[in-house]
């Protein structure tokens, strides 16, 4: 299975919608729509630049939620909202979750709200209340004691960060992928997605042997940006 990613409003709202529809046509299993944020600390240069451009275009949280609502009416592919915690926090977490549910969103991926903050923010509680999967993230240095805690709250699937670093294409996949995911499977019994740095078909097929879902993010944006024309068909060809 594949999960692809776009930044809402990049390169523009209309074009972004076309990219999402094209991705759905290729049969990807999940699509992540990122609501842009000014300070995306987990993102590398490609997605960071897309965040910046989308914000320069004047994209608001409300615009993104409207886009998502339009999309979910047109396609059946499950949609996830990816963003940083300040966005739902300022929107009002409860209101944000309610709106996401109304827009038929599958779940949220928010990298800067670890489980430790639950007492203060009630993020998991709000997601649960509104029927959203709060997708948990795991890294290669997450210790077993923590994997156990995460296993208790994880629903939908778990997002495994393939290696150290921010999002973005990398030349090599983590050579210890197999043992890394095997270790996680000892604790986590729901599907595992693998993301960060997956950038060619070879890597996708290798990653697919170990993970249930392969995440393709920055590569899509780079593909789009590097083609003079036929940008969307380039994305489709890559995913097919």
């Amino acid at each position, binding site marked *: 299975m594949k999960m692809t990613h776009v930044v809402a409003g990049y390169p523009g709202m209309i074009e972004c919608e076309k990219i999402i529809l094209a991705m759905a046509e290729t049969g990807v299993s999940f699509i992540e729509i990122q609501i842009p*944020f000014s300070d995306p600390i987990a993102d590398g240069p490609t997605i960071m630049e897309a965040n910046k451009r989308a914000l320069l275009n004047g994209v608001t949280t409300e615009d993104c939620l409207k886009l998502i609502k339009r999309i979910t009416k047109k396609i059946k592919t499950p949609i996830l909202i990816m963003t940083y915690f*300040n966005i739902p926090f*300022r929107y009002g977490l409860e209101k944000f979750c309610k709106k996401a549910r109304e827009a038929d969103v599958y779940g949220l991926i928010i990298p800067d709200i670890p489980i430790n903050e639950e007492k203060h923010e009630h993020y998991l509680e709000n997601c649960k209340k509104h029927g959203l999967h709060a997708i948990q993230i795991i890294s290669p240095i997450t210790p077993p004691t923590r994997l156990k805690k995460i296993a208790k709250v994880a629903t939908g699937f778990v997002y495994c960060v393939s290696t150290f670093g921010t999002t973005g294409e990398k030349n090599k996949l983590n050579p210890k992928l197999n043992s890394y995911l095997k270790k996680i499977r000892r604790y986590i019994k729901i599907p595992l997605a693998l993301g960060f740095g997956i950038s060619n078909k070879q890597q996708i097929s290798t990653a697919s042997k170990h993970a249930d879902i392969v995440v393709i993010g920055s590569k899509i944006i780079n593909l789009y940006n590097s083609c003079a024309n036929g940008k969307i068909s380039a994305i489709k060809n890559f995913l097919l």
Partner: protein
Amino acid sequence: MKSLKKYMFNKTGHFGQYGGRYIPELLIPIMEELETTFYEAIKDSSFKTELNNLYKNYSGRPTPLYFCENLTKKLGGAKIFLKNEGLNHTGAHKINHCLGQALIAKRVGKKRVIAETGAGQHGLATATVCAKFGLDCVIYMGTKDYKRQLPNVFYMERLGAKVVPVKDGGQILRDAINAALKDLISNPKDTHYLLGTVCGPHPYPAMNAYFQSIIGKEVRKEIKPDYLIACVGGGSNAMGLFCDFLDDKDVKMIGVEAGGKGIYETETKCDHAARFQTGKPGVAEGFKSYFLQNKDGQLKETSSISAGLDYSGVGPQIAYLKDIGRINMTYSLDKDVLSAYEMLAKTEGIFAALESCHALAETMKLAPKLDKDKIIVFNCSGRGDKDLFIVSEKFNFNIYENDTCGRRISRHDRM
């Protein structure tokens, strides 16, 4: 009542609703390790002895608490004392937490140190301790700050640090913090992020406040103040001065933010960096606090004559102390900061850093309103040498100018 001094050691890293650890999962084990090391270190008497020796013999502590007699006479009110942190080795209070964190890095065997810097004082102090302890050093600095604090870039490089200009965003402190966090995410095992203020994920706010609290402790040994005044960028020098007095109810505390050109702003940019004037609670750079942001929560760019105060967030403990009314927050405008800079130079023969001149400007406003037996201590967090290029421009002194052929020459060559 719970001691506010003790409150900095809250286990979750929250100060009321602020603080915490809002970071990617990858950094959680790293911050937990740092927290454990820090708590162990400060219980270890050999750590304390080593740190105190460095404070004394390397940095030159204790720093003087100097009575500004001429300035006091001129203003005709409260007695003004200046805590001269500018006389520290490397010229500012930043060396206090750099020495502390370098010992922490050494304790866990990290060989590489990264840091962000705004004014360059924290970068300079980091590069200095790395040279002393034989650690590889990379400093991230927004391109705008890189240009306006060039003397510090030069010194950092001479100390063996690699200075990386950051071209993202507004090219200032916030962008440097983001770049440093990303470096840490990429190199979590061998790298210590020597964060330079009381911001960022737990344990940084508590840890840096602890290392800086030496400032207030030294003040207490010499005097009983009525007012403490410090500038607030992230808040490290302010927490340094305030910490030891938090439980002394009769000591009033004032934090001074950068008012820039005035409290004006658009959807994306502020003419100031006064978080407590128009900022709201938010989450960014790994912690919760007041941030200058638009209604969607997008952080705004800030503006100030001083690179060290030019930041859209503020330390979570400061936010908490402001909310409960323990400290008052105000701001100084760029123009008043320059007047204060000139006044201190001409009355006392001291150049204060532009950051510290924010606190001085507020001191000069307050002193004449108070009785002569009142005592104000303001923290001169750094010396003004680094601001040569900015200040010379503001006072129309061209260090460089173009000759008749359009070549850039120094004023010296022309004479």
